[in-house]
């Protein structure tokens, strides 16, 4: 396969994930990533910076495909019990803690904009709160609680009082 962009990695990852699932082997991220990397640069090591970035994006695509497989895995391999959700919680919480960190970047920048737009102690408190969340929260349940507080506007309302 030529190229090696995100789509290539994701597509190849999905194919590998499908084969893995059919065989009921459930390979780890490393296998899919390795497969995606092999597909992106012909199996050789990346040479220049540009190729390196392409292989990185291919890796992310492969890893996302692995996520899709892992979420679907439990629901379709016959182990699902009545009332059980088709989700592998261990892997989902692992991904949630990292995904929460990615979204934390957005929250921190948005809080910084709010502070610049309306400089106040509440704005400063919001930036510190978001930065602390970005740095420290890795527990998915705590992260879920923070997302709830942010989405419902409780945090904005609280900080607007200062």
């Amino acid at each position: 396969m030529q190229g090696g962009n995100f789509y290539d990695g994701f597509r190849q990852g999905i194919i590998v994930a499908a084969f893995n699932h059919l065989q009921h082997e459930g390979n780890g991220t490393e296998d899919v990533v390795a497969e995606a990397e092999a597909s992106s640069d012909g199996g050789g090591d990346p040479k220049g910076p540009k190729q390196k970035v392409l292989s990185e994006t291919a890796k992310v695509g492969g890893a996302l495909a692995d996520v899709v497989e892992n979420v679907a895995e439990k629901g379709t391999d016959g182990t699902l019990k009545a009332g059980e959700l088709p989700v592998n919680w261990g892997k989902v919480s692992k991904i949630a803690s990292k995904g929460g960190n990615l979204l934390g970047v957005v929250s921190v920048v948005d809080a910084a904009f709010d502070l610049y737009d309306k400089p106040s102690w509440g704005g400063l408190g919001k930036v510190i709160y978001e930065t602390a969340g970005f740095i420290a929260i890795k527990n998915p349940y705590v992260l879920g609680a923070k997302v709830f507080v942010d989405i419902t506007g409780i945090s904005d309302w609280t900080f607007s009082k200062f």
Partner: protein
Amino acid sequence: MKQFCIKLILGFANYFTRKDESIYDTFNLIVGRNAIIVMFFFLLVTILILLGFNPFYFLEGKEKLERMGIIFVVYLITLPIFMIIFPSNEIMAVEMVEKELKYYYILNAIILFSLVIIFALVTFIKKGFL
């Protein structure tokens, strides 16, 4: 400087790495780079405010969700740039013990909060309180 940044990346990545994972996994290294990206953002924004520019010009007058969408897209564009500056193979070449990793994680927090405070001070001085 680059080695110092790589150690900061590893320190931050280590905090989000579970016991059954490798610190050098793709997602862990992406998370590790986030701290550097946020530090760079605060540094850049503070300098722009000091120079009299409005660093958030492109976010003015937008709704919260629109703003977050724009910020996320800019983040997705920025991430590959930091992957070029701090490539995975160079990060993987650095090995640190647990104690060192924890030290660099704390250093991440100290630097980031210092930059936040400097940014807030500059904003308050330039724009005043509302």
